[in-house]
């Protein structure tokens, strides 16, 4: 089993370092066993490419700077099919370019990690300023119905942990996983402990047994809906296509195949929501107002809630680490028992629509939105908590 980079890292001890969020993606990726990076540099994600360029070759992995983001994404899918743990990193403009091949990755079920360090868009927007404007693009950027997993860290430590989780979920569910940073988290430095690979759970994709070579069907339905995946070149007959295909991997142009494959792609995620949806909350049970946020905005939210409580207000916070699939059931239960859910976001209102849908009128929902490249200060959230209490 290939895990070249990871094996080397395992020999290392855990280390305490001052790291940027972007650098934490590199360190977390290496702990998870990342062995391949293809990408095109872009602010504020360039430090990720720089880090992998420096470290991967020395560990026996590969780094390729591609001609653009479309090719980068294709390259990552190819490396994944060949058995590598592959990752790419970009920001808004590049993320738009990756969308078509992201759909291909979902269709051929290629485990990989796509990092988007969000900056203000559309277009080249504000290159050096934070945003959470790609939340919906992460969900619906590629065409057609499809499952997706997107994780979003709020601290450098969480960036390490969620990078490892991104690789693990990609391998486990055979799906591209999107890691949504924002410029604040990507560029801030924090003191963190980088774990050794021996301390954390590292997931490897399920591979077929050598004796299954003769009768092998690469997209055979299984109990968990996740077919075992051989590395290209290991003697398994294996066809990959973006067309709807049957268990052999070849397209037959039948509507039944399209329905069965789509249902299986969705089922492998839908039946594992408890494993995939990661969130943290600080609720005492008597909250009137709960602030729900993700990414760097969660830090302002936590600060605001702490101060609101000091002032005697009944407030709590929820921090989503998994943005997609959305924590619908959790929010529905929350809405049943609180008066108001406040959703601060660095966009004109994206995830708040999901909160409204899940809350279904059971609680008031208020947004705080910034889209000028500045972070939401705790005062603004505190004022909102007071206003709706």
């Amino acid at each position: 089993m290939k895990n070249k980079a990871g094996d080397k890292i395992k020999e290392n001890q855990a280390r305490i370092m001052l790291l940027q969020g972007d650098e934490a993606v590199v360190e977390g990726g290496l702990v998870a066993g990342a062995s391949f990076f293809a990408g095109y540099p872009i602010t504020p994600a360039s430090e990720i490419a720089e880090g992998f360029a420096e470290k991967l070759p020395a560990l026996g992995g590969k780094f390729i700077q591609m001609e653009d983001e479309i090719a980068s994404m294709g390259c990552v899918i190819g490396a994944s099919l060949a058995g590598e743990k592959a990752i790419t990193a970009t920001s808004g403009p590049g993320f738009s370019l990756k969308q078509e091949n992201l759909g291909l990755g979902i269709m051929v079920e290629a485990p990989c990690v796509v990092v988007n360090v969000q900056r203000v868009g559309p277009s080249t927007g504000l290159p050096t300023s934070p945003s959470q404007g790609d939340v919906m693009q992460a969900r619906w950027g590629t065409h057609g119905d499809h499952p997706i997993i997107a994780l979003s860290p709020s601290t450098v430590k969480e960036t390490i942990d969620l990078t490892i989780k991104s690789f693990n979920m990609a391998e486990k569910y055979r799906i591209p996983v999107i890691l949504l940073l924002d410029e604040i988290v990507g560029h801030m430095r924090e003191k963190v402990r980088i774990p050794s690979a021996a301390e954390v759970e590292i997931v490897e994709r399920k591979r077929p047994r050598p004796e299954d070579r003769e009768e092998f069907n690469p997209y055979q339905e299984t109990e968990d809906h996740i077919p075992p995946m051989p590395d290209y070149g290991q003697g398994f007959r294996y066809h990959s296509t973006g067309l709807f295909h049957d268990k052999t991997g070849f397209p037959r142009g039948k509507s039944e195949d399209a329905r069965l494959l789509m249902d299986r792609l969705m089922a492998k995620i839908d039946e594992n929501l408890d494993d995939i949806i990661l969130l943290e909350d600080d609720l005492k049970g008597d909250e009137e107002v709960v602030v729900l946020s993700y990414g760097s905005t969660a830090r302002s939210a936590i600060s605001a809630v702490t101060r609101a409580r000091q002032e005697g207000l009944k407030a709590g916070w929820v921090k989503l680490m998994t943005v997609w699939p959305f924590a619908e059931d959790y929010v529905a239960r929350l809405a049943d028992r609180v008066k108001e859910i406040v959703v601060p976001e660095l966009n004109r209102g994206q995830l708040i629509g999901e909160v409204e849908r899940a809350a279904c009128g059971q609680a008031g929902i208020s947004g705080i939105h910034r889209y000028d490249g500045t972070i939401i200060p705790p005062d603004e959230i505190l004022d909102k908590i007071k206003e709706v209490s």
Partner: protein
Amino acid sequence: MKRKEIRLSGAGGQGMILAGIILAESSLFDPELYVVQTQSYGPESRGGATRAEVIVSREPIDYPKVVKADILVCLTAESLNKYGQEVAAGGVVIADDSFAGEDYSPPEGVEFYSLPIIAKARDEIGLEVTANMVALGAVDHFLPEIDSDCLEQAIEKRVPEGTEEKNLAAFRTGQQLLSARV
């Protein structure tokens, strides 16, 4: 310990961001100290006003930006104009004496030090670019949370190879600027 907010500001090229990183890195030697460092990016960090922010605390740090600085360092008149009023009561402002003087009045309860930071770097160390380390030496005086030795180790680790001695000398010169006065 309540969080302590430090803002280092100046012009692009004066090394305030490096000083911020060194300050943050010096916290690695204390396992119980949390630290967050952020900085200005983009065109402004390449010529215009530039700033690095460091927050240290004994508790996990939520909001990562400076709200009101407990320590503000300004190496240009522009940065003193911009940030001079965003200082917490009980805090200190340290500015270069080449411009800081009559037209600045600190907020109430804030101590103001106008020091020959750039002049010392230029005349005593012989390298004006070490003004950032002179400034860091002055900051050290107001940072009992971080051991001076830890700052020196962080300087040695981060400055360009071969310039360690000059930078350490600049840091110590900065330390003396205040111990001589306060």
